[in-house]
């Protein structure tokens, strides 16, 4: 064990090992941050949430970082609520029951590009008679455009950008463009910057009735990682994908390497039929293509990450690695110190666990480290096939969504790039460390 420690100190001399360790360290820090900042239940709730949770996010927009690029000036999402500025609300009692009100919601728009979408949400509190409202849009140059009028219920959504009638009156321009354009004839249309106002006037028909409004100018960028087709913030999956990927890779690698090693040692030590069975099982498992078995289990039985983990471990036990360990233990078995242990009367299991296995640990370590990225990618592969865990947000599931929604065709590159970068970082981090370890701990590779 001391020798092992001394050799591990040599890692410092390999730049690739240092880089690998730094990457792994960063990923671990990111995982801890993810687990602390968003509790597990909250992450799952957010990721499975529909419009209700994510209504305030734009759909399919890149991260805010794209505004750093030259010539890009994309708007961020603006949320205006009538409740935030009560001083802009005028009320006038007309009769005993009827109240007239005017709400003005001013905002400044200074971006170079148009919003992605435009929606207004009205909510009213009433007993029997629904309040009546008229909504109009006032541009910086003073032009006033009628948007809609009608009665509102306790929760009315008005998707301004999907209003066909409005679109016709705006020379066929989509409302989120037409309402912000300097000149409707211009091609391409230019943004008119300045002070806009959404004015809502209406009547409440009951004494205790109340009304509030919310306007959302959906932006063209969002947060650190952008959003997906369901308006979800991708950064949640990226963040939570880290601890899931790391623990999945680590557990599967630990499980399969340790069991493989113990089985190989037991087989070599007891030889005869024990070894025979293990050898035969290895031959059989050659025929079972792991991915095919996993796809079958995922499709037919369960997509739970724990079931997959178990199947992966079982499939990995009798893989080619068992042969490497076997030939190694064959050599160790002949060593004089094993002979000595036997002659003083050590029991079989004691020899296996105290004399054979510890000697093989140096070979195990690099094997183990290089196995982790393979398993992380395997999880992503399964997710890409639609067999990811139904509940958990993972990198692979982001990739799957991107792939299923044609992200590459439609130009949503950020959607593919961010999970890919995290995947390849994990892969590189572990395998750079693994390669360096292999060269340090494997005597045949020393100095090569």
């Amino acid at each position, binding site marked *: 064990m001391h020798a092992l420690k001394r050799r591990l100190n040599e890692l410092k001399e390999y730049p*690739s090992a240092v880089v*690998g360790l730094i990457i792994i360290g960063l990923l671990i820090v990111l995982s801890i941050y993810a687990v602390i900042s968003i509790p597990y239940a909250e992450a799952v709730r957010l990721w499975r949430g529909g419009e209700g949770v994510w209504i305030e996010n734009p759909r399919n927009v890149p991260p805010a970082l794209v505004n750093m690029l030259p010539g890009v000036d994309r708007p961020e999402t603006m949320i205006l609520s009538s409740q935030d500025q009560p001083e802009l609300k005028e009320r006038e009692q007309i009769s005993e029951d009827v109240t007239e009100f005017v709400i003005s919601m001013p905002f400044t728009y200074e971006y170079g590009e148009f919003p992605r979408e435009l929606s207004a949400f009205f909510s009213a509190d009433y007993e029997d008679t629904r309040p009546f409202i008229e909504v109009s849009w006032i541009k910086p140059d003073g032009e006033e455009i009628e948007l809609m009028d009608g009665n509102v219920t306790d929760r009315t959504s008005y998707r301004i950008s999907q209003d066909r009638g409005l679109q016709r009156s705006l020379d066929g321009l989509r409302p989120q463009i037409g309402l912000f354009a300097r000149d409707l004839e211009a091609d391409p249309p230019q943004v008119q910057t300045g002070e806009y106002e959404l004015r809502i006037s209406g009547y409440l028909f009951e004494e205790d009735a109340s009304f509030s409004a919310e306007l959302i100018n959906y932006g063209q960028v969002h947060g650190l990682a952008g959003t997906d087709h369901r308006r979800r913030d991708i950064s949640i999956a990226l963040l939570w994908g880290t601890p899931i990927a790391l623990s999945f890779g680590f557990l599967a690698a630990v499980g399969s390497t340790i069991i493989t090693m113990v089985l190989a040692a037991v087989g*070599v030590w007891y*030889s*005869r039929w024990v070894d025979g069975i293990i050898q*035969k099982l290895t*031959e*059989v*498992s*050659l*025929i*079972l*293509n792991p*991915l*095919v*078995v996993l*796809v*079958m*289990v995922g*499709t*037919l*039985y369960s997509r739970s990450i724990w079931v997959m983990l178990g199947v992966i471990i079982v499939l990995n036990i009798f893989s080619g690695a068992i*042969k490497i360990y*076997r*030939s190694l233990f*064959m050599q160790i*078995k*002949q060593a004089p110190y094993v002979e000595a242990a*036997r*002659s003083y*009367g050590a029991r*079989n299991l004691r020899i296996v666990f105290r004399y054979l296995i510890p000697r093989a640990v140096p070979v195990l370590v690099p094997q183990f480290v*290089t196995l982790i*990225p*393979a398993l992380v*990618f395997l999880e992503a*592969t399964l997710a*890409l*096939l639609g067999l990811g865990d139904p509940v958990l947000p993972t990198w692979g599931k982001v*990739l799957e969504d991107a*792939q299923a929604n044609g992200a*590459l*065709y439609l*130009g949503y*590159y950020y959607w*593919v*790039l961010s999970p*890919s970068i995290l*995947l*390849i970082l994990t*892969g*590189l981090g*572990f*395998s*750079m460390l*693994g*390669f360096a370890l292999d060269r340090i701990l494997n005597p*045949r*590779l020393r100095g*090569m």
Partner: protein
Amino acid sequence: MSRDYVPPETLQQEAPESPGPKRKETDLWRLARYAALRLLALFLAAVVGVYLMILIANMGGYVDEIRRAEITMNVAEMTRGPEFAELPEEQRRERRDALIAQEVERLGLDQPFVLRSIYSLRDALTLDLGRSENMTSDAGSRHVRHIILERLPPSLFLFLSAQLIMFFLALFIALALSRQYGSTLDKIMVALAPTSAAPSWFYGIFLILIFAALLGVLPFGRMVAAPPPGETWAYALSVLRHLVLPVSAIVLGGLFLSIYNWRTYFLIYSSEDYVEMAKAKGLSGRKIERRYILRPTLPPIITSFMLSIITVWMGQIVLEEIFNWPGLGRLLYQAIGLYDTPVIIGLVVIYAYLLGVTVFLLDFIYALVDPRVKVGSEGGQT
């Protein structure tokens, strides 16, 4: 203490031959017996492997439940039509039950699962692949053989070309690197080896992003342009254009690790004493390479070559999905999604046989190229 302990060496030397007059048997006889035993062992492994796959593909009989539910649903859907609406309830139920029974019998669901699993094992092992349950080939055939044969050419074309390119490229680059060990190029290649941690589909996504989406010079996927060009040469050209990205993805996914492994191998063998000796004798570099380095590394080279060729059969599910390539991997994936066990088992059993034959052949090829290995003496060589 442990009297049952037998050193492995003596155990292995005694195993193949029993003492007595038979010791004088000829080499040929011993070879034949060894071959027969080895074949039998491999066949048994194939039988167990295929049976396991049958069990998994049916989820130990659970898939039958899914199928039954599907049949009931389909029949209910069928009997909703106008021609049934006029029948009285009693008669309609009778019709429905009859249709369900007919479908259950067609799929053989009326027999117990254990029995059917044995039948399908027998059929699979005799390569009687039978008919699919839901899938049809593009030409409309329901024979599993036709469905597989239809997908075979695209699969072979893609993976064989990729494997051949990767194999020879890796070998030659590794040989060149081992000659200039320690050079900048050598160091770059060693540093690139960890990139093979990512599977080829991963590189596929990036290649599509760069060459199809950003540059627009190569197609996103599929095997030929749609609609396919009429003339033969235009068709071939179109296929080649579609082949570039998936082949590059496969090569990128494995090349650097392959180069690294071969390079290390060559370096280990070129530091042997007999190589030093040959150098001292003044043999030319090429001769040393051919006689003393390539010769002893030939067995692993052949093994890895043959094993990489068989992997062609299983294809790569995700890579084919991403590139929309109509290969065997996608076929397998579709078959699993449709619970079409005959197609799954058909693909698996052919793979098992291919693998068995290859492993068997490798034993003999080893003996041919490596004088240290003797066929029939149970060395650890596999």
